[in-house]
């Protein structure tokens, strides 16, 4: 259709020049006009992946500019791609469980496994992550992951109480439990609470009904439904004392900021979100995108991902983990990414306490979504 989505726009300012100071910038805002043209890379991702802390160095080195479009959930991502002309998005950051759907709809290009460091993965699951391969063809490259469990304010809840999803029902928390406004992680947790364990996504009609009942019984505790920003603010200012549907990816940021919050993987088990890169079908910049993915899988990129300002994720490569321990031991420690530490994310996976987030097996996403709307209205 139209080319305009891909149309080259001049890159007006280079970040490093601008960092010199606002005053100078204010007087010469468009000084960069005459500079060499910059290639734009359209990125579809969760919030934060296209921000300078993630892509800045790569932009500098390669004279490219990332133009991010942020989505709010896997189905939202699919919808955004569906309504845009093919080739609109050069790089797509997808949740692991949605890769298969992206592939099925023909939205993404195949990748060459030889381009990426599969030999260096921290866990064998990461080399053959479900849905990322179609037979021997690779479609998506895992970038990082994070674990979801009980996130709570440490002044309102003890680690003991948080060690079970039961903790959300604590009477003192009435009106202080928040939900991240997406059905998958929340209902997944309720399913875990019901003891479905590894079968948390594969629910029979009765089990699904039980999950709905459990969820509904939590409703009276709930103080609100939030997007990323709202979740953040709610936990930080004490408006919410416990959050369902999130994990260290949010509390980690707040912890760095000194807030009394933490996330634990409760005894019923936790959920892992997995974020992976795909190359958009029809992208004219596939080579650039490939080198970006390679860069993000390099130790340097893995450290950036672990330190990501918007929300952290754990490293998937050994080299990345090693480098993080070396350059930012504080963050490595905070996120337990050290061998032998309790709650080391890789160890948790090995212990079988972590379940990869998936989509419902016996129900449709729509059913879950409908129930979620009902729940919000209850």
């Amino acid at each position, binding site marked *: 259709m139209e080319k305009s989505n891909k149309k080259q726009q001049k890159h007006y300012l280079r970040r490093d020049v601008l960092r010199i100071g606002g005053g100078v910038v204010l007087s010469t805002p468009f000084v960069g006009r005459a500079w060499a043209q910059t290639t734009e890379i359209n990125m579809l991702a969760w919030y934060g992946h296209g*921000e300078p802390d993630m892509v800045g160095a790569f932009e500098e080195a390669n004279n490219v500019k990332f*133009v991010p479009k942020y989505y709010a959930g896997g189905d939202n991502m699919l919808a955004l791609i569906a309504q845009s002309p093919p080739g609109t998005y050069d790089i797509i950051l997808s949740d692991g469980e949605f890769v298969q759907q992206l592939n099925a709809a023909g939205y993404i290009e195949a990748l060459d496994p030889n381009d990426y460091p599969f030999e260096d993965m921290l866990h064998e699951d990461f080399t053959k992550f479900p849905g990322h391969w179609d037979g021997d063809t690779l479609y998506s490259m895992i970038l990082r992951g994070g674990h979801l469990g009980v996130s709570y304010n440490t002044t309102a809840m003890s680690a003991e109480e948080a060690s079970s999803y039961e903790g959300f029902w604590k009477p003192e928390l009435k009106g202080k439990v928040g939900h991240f406004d997406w059905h998958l992680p929340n209902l997944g947790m309720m399913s875990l609470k019901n003891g479905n364990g590894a079968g948390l996504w594969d629910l029979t009609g009765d089990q699904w009904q039980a999950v709905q009942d459990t969820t509904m019984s939590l409703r009276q505790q709930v103080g609100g439904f939030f997007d990323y920003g709202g979740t953040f603010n709610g936990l930080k200012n004490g408006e919410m004392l416990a959050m369902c549907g999130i994990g260290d990816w949010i509390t980690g940021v707040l912890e760095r900021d000194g807030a009394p919050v933490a996330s634990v993987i409760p005894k019923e088990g936790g959920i892992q979100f997995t974020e992976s890169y795909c190359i958009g079908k029809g992208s004219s910049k596939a080579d650039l995108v490939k080198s970006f993915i390679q860069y993000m899988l390099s130790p340097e990129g893995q450290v950036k991902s672990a330190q990501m300002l918007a929300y952290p994720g754990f490293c998937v490569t050994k080299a990345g983990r090693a480098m993080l321990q070396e350059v930012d031991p504080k963050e490595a420690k905070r996120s337990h990414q050290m061998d032998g530490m309790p709650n080391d994310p890789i160890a948790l996976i090995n212990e079988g306490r972590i379940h990869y987030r998936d989509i419902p097996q016996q129900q449709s996403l729509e059913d879950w979504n409908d129930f979620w709307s009902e729940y919000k209205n209850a």
Partner: protein
Amino acid sequence: MHGRGLNIILGVYVALIFTFVFAPIFFSLVFSFNSQRFPTIPLGEFSTEWYAKILSDPDIWQAVRNSVIVSTTTAILATTLGFCTAYTDFRYNFRFKGPYLALILLPPTIPLIIMALAMLAWLSRLGLSGQLWSIIMAHSVLTAPFAMAIIRLRLHQMDPDLEAAAWNLGGTEWQAMRHVIVPFCMPAIISSLCLTAAVSFDEFAVAWFVSGLNKTVPIVILEIVQGNIDPQVNAIGTFVFLTSISLVVAAQVIFISRQIKSHS
């Protein structure tokens, strides 16, 4: 009527209303200079960190540039649309005048979220979505009624003989338009340009839906509020405030005060 006491009570009441209206604006200004990322009481240190941050962010500059393009173009288009309708209403009577006026006056009665939904669906069907132009088209439809109202009010104050007088003195209809109608409406036209530009500059719902990858300032604000929430929002807000307020003041000085004066 009775007295002093009532006046004091009313004065306090009006002050309370104004406090409510201006509290968020005031605190936004305060937080924009506050060092804390999540502002709470007591306040942190004075800091211009957030301003430095937005000023050094090329994406925000790009958004400002987009916003300026969108709001000026919208203002010109909407004022043109508003002027044409106002003039037609002033000058002509015809059979379908009711529907004709409804056509331009109805959009503000439809919630923005619905307009946004409909616009995106329709514009992407026409292959016009995801560009700055898409925002401009949508905004021109949304703001034209305000332009129409302002200019119509001005025309209402005009002696209808003025235009005929120009013809009578040998001016063609076009000359009369250029030398009489337009000069007479000039204050209203300028007000309308300022007001429509200001409305467009702050509109986010429709812009967010139809803009695709092009961001305007309010979209950047929305994304920060949805995402990495931080006081940059307040810094940008202060900036938007200053821009809008200069437009509004300009409009006020030129036209609105006259309206209120002549109406009370």
